[in-house]
Each structure stands twice: as structure tokens, then as C-alpha cells.
């Protein structure tokens, strides 16, 4: 439905000559109009009485439904917000909701017999959408409530299982253009992350409470020291403070002791060891101070240290949660659904992973073949680019073997499954991806490296301080000074700096439509290595586009009028081309509108139709023509009117604009380039020659590689000592993405998107990659700066503490200052420079 694309922020293409659809707001030809005079509750808005125009019947239906239910508010609310989120590339189907347990949907039955279920919604755009959905329950019997969560596009239904089913709610919502389906696998895991996140928040809140209270008690004590305080008051305040500090160390601070203990057991030094030691010393110091009523106070430093460390831990969690695991979830083919045919001729929609050998499945045009098998009925063209990288679709007929994951382009076929999802080609690739993830050696984090040195240095200094003061002035002074040193030696800046800088960089990257899941990748991108690029979908658009039109311009709108009725990739390519021509020429398909009659599609030939009494044919030329000069196998589509050739379209996979500019930018930054493609067509070599003629050197250039071979190449490059970066968009790149030091997935034409790659670039990826590399370099520099500041701070304070100059007041001032400095430095790090200042 076209109104699923509704986006209030999107301007219409040509305001003066087109009409906006009253429902979706997109430019429309205005075929469907209706006068909306509402019977009840006359609207104060006069426009409600005037004729409305719609782009399609779907929009008209949705508009009338919304009005009948009295939910007109939708249109006024829609302008309130335009919610920009990561593009949702998968499609959901309510078919899977028919059998909830089979589809793995988790239904909670509440004590009163009602049920609660969380489902994914597609088509959500703004607050108006969520309002519309949430306003529905009174109209659906048995539905108690519906709560939308915009942040992750999910919906929680609370219903009475005796009166309604999620399936029926889904059917109802689909009338409005919202598709409801089971949550995908990674979304289920997101729910688990939610629990972890809540736990972090919980302890931060507790630590904050304790730290804030400890601090104001400390202020009382300092003030008392300056102006005089009754001894019993001082004693009381010390005890209260010590109690708060103790609580802080015991509850929110527990994890640091635990990880320090693990570090001691495994004998791997970790930053948490001095942290735990500091906390322990601070705790003992507070208790000793409280019971002896003398000496420095430590509980405020203790509590604020716990708070800062807790915040650091949370930021770290945010920056790299799921980083190691995410690449294993690259492949979402388990979410493919299949239409299984039973012996009696019935149809049942099941998830692809439930298919067994021998099952017969129906594959409609436009859908994905769910498993490896043999065609038993019909013939069609299949696009296998996502699995093999082959850019040209192949023709498949009865008896031919098809690969699961191929896209059916043309006609309905019936496939008998010969291998289950796990055994099939997709399953093999998925298996390889998981192995690659397991094999992967993670680079040691910079903070850990420095942290280890820090641990030993601080411990050594503490011992030296203790011994020397003991010899010089006796035990009590020596304990006091050592305590001061260990408390003040604050590794928190060290622990906070890297995660903070990376988090800030990730946030800024997301604004540029670069989604970084694994924060560690930024560190790895800072040193040049080899960038391996996939061809189909990465260097090229990966789908068919019109290269050339040789014929009169005035028949183009007629062609568009016919082709716009089909979803075939060639039809879409022609319509896109004609639409772009229209903008420059000022012709409108509106002029022809619905004039095309009797339009039909013949498999293997093309489209036939009649416009103004003339017979049109758009389709295959008599022979498949290989033309030189273009890239790879271009295809010709001829247009005949009344049997006479009128013109020829040339279609092919077109190079993305700005390709050589971006590659040159990468080369200037010291990166070597390589093309690893699965495509066997000569296009790979042609691109290589084209690039070389422009002075861009390619380290390697290979076509026709299987996913396994791509992996071999990456391993070879890695063993040669290069940092390897793989850029790709298809399933055939998944293994290489997983094995490379940094895998960057880009948005290609493939439906099975690699959204879960460590880095996913939503648009203009060729332009974004050099910027990303610059940003990672800047981020690493910023981390180094923060480390330097933190080390300087530590050197000064440790020096003061060891020599006995530290006063509790100085400690109290230095503690927050160090934290705030790191925060400011991380925040002000210019990871992503403004676009106009970019070197590109």
C-alpha cells in the first residue's frame, strides 16, 4: 500500500501540477476522489466537506475507515512529528500469527485469563501512527489494550483469548497499512538486553542517591572543620557518611569486587583490580575514620567513585553490547516464510526452518525461495545475486535446482524441497559465519593495555609509600598516606575515556546514517590496511536500471502507464527512469492515466496493452543482445506500437555515482583496495580497468568467488599483516564480513539485509566510508588525549598523596574535576567533522 510510505516531512515533487493524496500526502495523479461529508459530528474544518483526492484505492479505504471510526485526529497529529528511524527492511506477515506456537511467539497468560503478547509492527512512522493503533481497542471486541513502542517498532496487545486472536487484530490493522508479525530473532534478544539495561539504570540510580547524600554530609564536615563543630555532631556525621559509603561499596560497587576477584583468579591484570583495591581501602578508611573520629574522610570519594565507575560501565555496555555476537546474526533467513502445499491442496504459511525434505512449496513472484529444492511446476527468472553475487538473473524451469534465498522475479513456481534450511546453501553459509565469529581474535583494548601498566605502577608506589613512611614516621602516618594514595589514584578517567569517546562518535555517526554496533571497530579502523569491496550492490546499485533510451520521448508516459502496474524489476526500472525524465521534461503520466486497457504480462516475452486504440508491446527483443561498451551483460527491452519498433531501452547494473572519488579518497588515506566479487560476468574486470585508468590502484581484483573463497582471501590478507575491512551487501559477503577485522554492511537491493553487521551504512555509503575512517582516526586521537590528561592528573595527585601533602579538601576537589574534564574532552572530540569541511 502506498500510504505506508507516508512521511509528512517528504515534500511533493511538483507542488503546482500534482495533487497530494489526502491520506498519505504523496504526489498523486488524483484518480480517486470522493466527497467526504460526515454524517455525524460535522467537522469544523471546512476542507472535510470538499472533494478529497487519493493516490490509490488503498489510501481511499484507509481514509474512509479512519473517518468512520471517528479518528480524524490522525491527520492533525501526523504533522507533529516525523520520526526518523533505521529503515525497516524486512517484511512481516500476519500469516505467521495464525499459529502462534509454531511461529515461536511468546504469549503470556495473565492471572485473569487474558493474554499479553508483543509483536513487531511495520509501517510506523510517527506519533500519529501510534495514536491511531492505540485508539483501536474499543472498536475490536475482546481487545483490551494496544500499546505501541516507537523506539523499536513493537506493539503490546492485551486481549481476551476467548473473544479475539492476534491474527484478527493483524487483519484489522492491515486495513490501515500496518503489518503485524512475530518479533524477529534479534528483536527477542533486544528484550533480553532491555533487562540488562534496566539493571544498569537501577544501580546507577542507587549509586547516585548514595553519592549525593554522602557528598552533602561531607560538605557539613568540611564546613564544621572550618567554623567549628560539636564533637558529638561530627561523630554522628562521620558515622552516617561511613554508612552511606559502605552501602555504596557493598551494593552498586559489588561488580567491581567480583571482576577484580576473577582477574586475580585468572591472573590477568585488569583495571578493576586497582578500582576494587581503592574501593576496599576507601571503605576501611571510612570505617576507621568513623570509629576513631579522626583522620581524613573518604566516604564521599568512595560513593562518587562508585557512581562514576557505574556510569562508565553502563556507557561501555551501550557502546559494545552484542558486539561479539551480532555478526553471527547477520543472516536472517530463518525469518523467511514459506507457503507449504499439503497433499489435499491446502496452503499453510510456515517459517522456512520448519520445512522438511520432500515438502512442496509455492513461491510467488516477488517472494524468496525458502529452501534449496527442485522446480516441479512453472518456469521463471530467479535473482541469485544475494547468495552468489551473480548480477544477472537466471532462467529456471521444471527439473532445475534452485537455491534457497533466491528472489523469484517473474511467475509462480512450485518447488519440492531437497534440503532443509540448515543443510542448504544458506545454512552452510550461516554455519561458516558462526565459525568465523568464533575464530576471530579480538584486538586488546587500549584501555586494558594501559590499565595493566597502571595497576602495577600504583601497587608499586603504594608499597614504596607505605614502607618509606613507616621507616620515617611510624605505622599510623604510613597507613594514612597509603590510604590517601590508593583512594586518590583514580583510574576512573582511564575507564571512562574510551567508552565515552566511542559512544559520542557512535551517536554522531548515526546522524549520518552510519550505524555502529561494535564500538571496538572504531579503534581498528584508525590504522590503514586493505579495504575489500564487493561489486554487486556495493560498487554498483545491484539492480537493473535504464542505461539508455533510444526512441521518441513522447511515448514514455504511455509506457509508464502500462509498466506501473507491475512489480517486475524491469518494469520498476522503466518507471523510475521515466519518472526522472518527467521531472526534467515536464511530461506527466497523468496525461495517459488509466487509458491503458487490456494490459497483460506474458512470461518470457513482455507486456501487451492498448492505449488510445494502439497496440503496445514492451518486452524482449528477439535475441538477447550482448553489447559492448556497457558494463557486463546489459539487456535490451524493445517498445513496439502496432508491431512497429519505436525504441529500445538498454538496462543494466549501473555504477554508483562518486565511486572513483571515494576510492581515491580511501587511497589517499593510505588504504589499499581490493575487489572481491561473486559475479562471474566481465563487469568486474571492466570496473577494474576503468578504475585503473583513473589512477586508482587495486591490490587484488577477483570475480566469481564463492563465499568460502572470499573468506580465504581475507584470511590471506590478514596473515600478511593488514587490517582487513570488508564492505559488502549480500549474503555471499556475510562470511567475509564476519572474518574481516571490520565488516561494513551497506544497504543494497537485497531484501535480506545485513543490518546486524558491526557497521551498517544506510545511504550514500561510498561517500560515508572515507568519513567513517577519518572519524575513527579522530576518535582514537581523542581517546589518547583523554588518557594523557588522566595520567597527568594521576601523576600529580599520587605525587601529592605519597609526599603527604594531600588534604581531604584537595581530594574532594580533584575527584569531580578529573571526571568532568574527561567528560568534556570526550564530548568536544570532533569525530565527525561538518560535511563542508570534510576532505571529500
Amino acid at each position, binding site marked *: 500500500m502506498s500510504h505506508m510510505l507516508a512521511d509528512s516531512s517528504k515534500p511533493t515533487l511538483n507542488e503546482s501540477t500534482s495533487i497530494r493524496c489526502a491520506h498519505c500526502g504523496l504526489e498523486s495523479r488524483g484518480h480517486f476522489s470522493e466527497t467526504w461529508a460526515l*454524517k*455525524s*459530528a460535522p467537522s469544523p474544518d471546512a476542507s472535510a466537506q470538499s472533494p478529497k483526492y487519493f493516490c490509490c484505492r488503498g489510501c481511499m479505504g484507509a481514509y474512509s*475507515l479512519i*473517518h*468512520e*471510526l*471517528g479518528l480524524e*485526529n490522525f491527520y492533525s*497529529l501526523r504533522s*507533529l*512529528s516525523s*520520526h526518523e528511524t533505521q529503515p525497516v527492511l524486512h517484511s512481516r506477515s500476519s500469516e505467521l500469527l495464525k499459529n502462534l506456537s509454531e511461529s515461536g511467539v511468546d504469549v503470556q497468560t495473565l492471572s485473569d485469563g487474558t493474554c499479553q503478547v508483543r509483536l513487531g509492527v511495520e509501517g510506523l512512522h510517527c*506519533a500519529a501512527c*501510534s*495514536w491511531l493503533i*492505540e*485508539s483501536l481497542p*474499543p*472498536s*475490536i*471486541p475482546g481487545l483490551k489494550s494496544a500499546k*505501541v*513502542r*516507537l*523506539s*523499536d517498532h513493537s506493539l503490546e496487545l492485551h486481549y481476551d483469548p476467548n473473544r479475539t486472536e492476534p491474527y484478527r487484530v493483524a487483519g*484489522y490493522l492491515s486495513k490501515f497499512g500496518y503489518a503485524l508479525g512475530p518479533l524477529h530473532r534479534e528483536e527477542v534478544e533486544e528484550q533480553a538486553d*532491555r533487562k540488562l539495561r*534496566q539493571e544498569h*539504570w*537501577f544501580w546507577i*540510580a*542507587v549509586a547516585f*542517591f548514595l553519592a*549525593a*547524600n554522602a557528598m552533602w*554530609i561531607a560538605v557539613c564536615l568540611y564546613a564544621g572543620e572550618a567554623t567549628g563543630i*560539636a564533637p*558529638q*555532631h561530627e561523630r*554522628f*556525621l562521620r558515622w*552516617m557518611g561511613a554508612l552511606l559509603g559502605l552501602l555504596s561499596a557493598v551494593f552498586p560497587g559489588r561488580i567491581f569486587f567480583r571482576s577484580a576477584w576473577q582477574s586475580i583468579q585468572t591472573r590477568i591484570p585488569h583495571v578493576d583490580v586497582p578500582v576494587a583495591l581503592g574501593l576496599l581501602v576507601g571503605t576501611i578508611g571510612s570505617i576507621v575514620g568513623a570509629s576513631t573520629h579522626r583522620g581524613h574522610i573518604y566516604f564521599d570519594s568512595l560513593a562518587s567513585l562508585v557512581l562514576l565507575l557505574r556510569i562508565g560501565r553502563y556507557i561501555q555496555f551501550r557502546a559494545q553490547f552484542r558486539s561479539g555476537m551480532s555478526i553471527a546474526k547477520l543472516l536472517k533467513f530463518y525469518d523467511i516464510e514459506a507457503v507449504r502445499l499439503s497433499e489435499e491442496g491446502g496452503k499453510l504459511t510456515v517459517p522456512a526452518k520448519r520445512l522438511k525434505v520432500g515438502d512442496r512449496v509455492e513461491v510467488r513472484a516477488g517472494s524468496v525461495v525458502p529452501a534449496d529444492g527442485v522446480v516441479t511446476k512453472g518456469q521463471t527468472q530467479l535473482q541469485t545475486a544475494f547468495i552468489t553475487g551473480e548480477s544477472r538473473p537466471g532462467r529456471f524451469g521444471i527439473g532445475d535446482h534452485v537455491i534457497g534465498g533466491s528472489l523469484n522475479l517473474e511467475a509462480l513456481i512450485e518447488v519440492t524441497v531437497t534440503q532443509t534450511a540448515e543443510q542448504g546453501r544458506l545454512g552452510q553459509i550461516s554455519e561458516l559465519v558462526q565459525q568465523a565469529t568464533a575464530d576471530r581474535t579480538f584486538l586488546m583494548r587500549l584501555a586494558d593495555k594501559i590499565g595493566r601498566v597502571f595497576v602495577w605502577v600504583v601497587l608499586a608506589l603504594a608499597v614504596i609509600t607505605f614502607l618509606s613512611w613507616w621507616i620515617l614516621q611510624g605505622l599510623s602516618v604510613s597507613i594514612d598516606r597509603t590510604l590517601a594514595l590508593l583512594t586518590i589514584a583514580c583510574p576512573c578517567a582511564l575507564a571512562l575515556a574510551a567508552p565515552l569517546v566511542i559512544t559520542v562518535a557512535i551517536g554522531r555517526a548515526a546522524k549520518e546514517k552510519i550505524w555502529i554496533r561494535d564500538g571496538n571497530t572504531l579503534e581498528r579502523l584508525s590504522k590503514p590496511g586493505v579495504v575489500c569491496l564487493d561489486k554487486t550492490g556495493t560498487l554498483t546499485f545491484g539492480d537493473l536500471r535504464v542505461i539508455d533510451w533510444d526512441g521518441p520521448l513522447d511515448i514514455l508516459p504511455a509506457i509508464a502507464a502500462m509498466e506501473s502496474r507491475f512489480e517486475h524489476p524491469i518494469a520498476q526500472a522503466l518507471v523510475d527512469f521515466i519518472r526522472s525524465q518527467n521531472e526534467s521534461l515536464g511530461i506527466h503520466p497523468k496525461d495517459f492515466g488509466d487509458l491503458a486497457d487490456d494490459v497483460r504480462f506474458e512470461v518470457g516475452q513482455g507486456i501487451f496493452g492498448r492505449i488510445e486504440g494502439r497496440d503496445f508491446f514492451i518486452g524482449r527483443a528477439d535475441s538477447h543482445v550482448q553489447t559492448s561498451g556497457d558494463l557486463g551483460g546489459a539487456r535490451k527491452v524493445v517498445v513496439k506500437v502496432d508491431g512497429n519498433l519505436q525504441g529500445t531501452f538498454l538496462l543494466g547494473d549501473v555504477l554508483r555515482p562518486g565511486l572513483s572519488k571515494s576510492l581515491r579518497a580511501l587511497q589517499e588515506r593510505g588504504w589499499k583496495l581490493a575487489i572481491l566479487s561473486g559475479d562471474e560476468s566481465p563487469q568486474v574486470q571492466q570496473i577494474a580497468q576503468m578504475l585503473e585508468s583513473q589512477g586508482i590502484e587495486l591490490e587484488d581484483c577477483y570475480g566469481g568467488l564463492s563465499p568460502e573463497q572470499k573468506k580465504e582471501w581475507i584470511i590471506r590478507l590478514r596473515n600478511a599483516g593488514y587490517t582487513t575491512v570488508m564492505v559488502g551487501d549480500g549474503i555471499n559477503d556475510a562470511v567475509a564480513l564476519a572474518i574481516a577485522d571490520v565488516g561494513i554492511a551497506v544497504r543494497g537491493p537485497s531484501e535480506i539485509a545485513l543490518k546486524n553487521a558491526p557497521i551498517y551504512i544506510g545511504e550514500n555509503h561510498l561517500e560515508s566510508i572515507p568519513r567513517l575512517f577519518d572519524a575513527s582516526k579522530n576518535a582514537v586521537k581523542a581517546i589518547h588525549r583523554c588518557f594523557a590528561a588522566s595520567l597527568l592528573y594521576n601523576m600529580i595527585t599520587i605525587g601529592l598523596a605519597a609526599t603527604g601533602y594531600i588534604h581531604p579538601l584537595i581530594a574532594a576537589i580533584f575527584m569531580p574535576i578529573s571526571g568532568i574534564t574527561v567528560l568534556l574532552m570526550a564530548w568536544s572530540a570532533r569525530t565527525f567533522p561538518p560535511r563542508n569541511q570534510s576532505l571529500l
Partner: protein
Amino acid sequence: MSVLFIALPLAILLGAAGLFACLHCIGSGQYEDLDTESYRILVDQQPEEQIARKKSDSPGTL
């Protein structure tokens, strides 16, 4: 006996009450979706009978 001995624990208890309210909010998932709630407050809830009347005026939807 100074007022401090009563006032200070009382102040901490009051603060703790606020803390528990905050913890409850975290537990109930209030901070999970900051997008929807900020708009929801702008929506006027229609009285149920009005919706019901509109429905009866326009038959044939469900």
C-alpha cells in the same frame, strides 16, 4: 539532644522514598520509550461514548 539526630535520618528517608519511586519507574519500563509518551500527552482522549456513537452511525466496519 540536637535536632540533627532526627532531621538527618529523616532527610535521608525522604530521599530514599524518591529513590524507590525512581527504581519503580525503571522497573516498569517507563524509560524504555521516551518517544511515544512525549506525544501521547498531547492527544486528547475522546470520551468512549462518542466513539461508540460514531461507530453506530457508520455500520459495516467490523
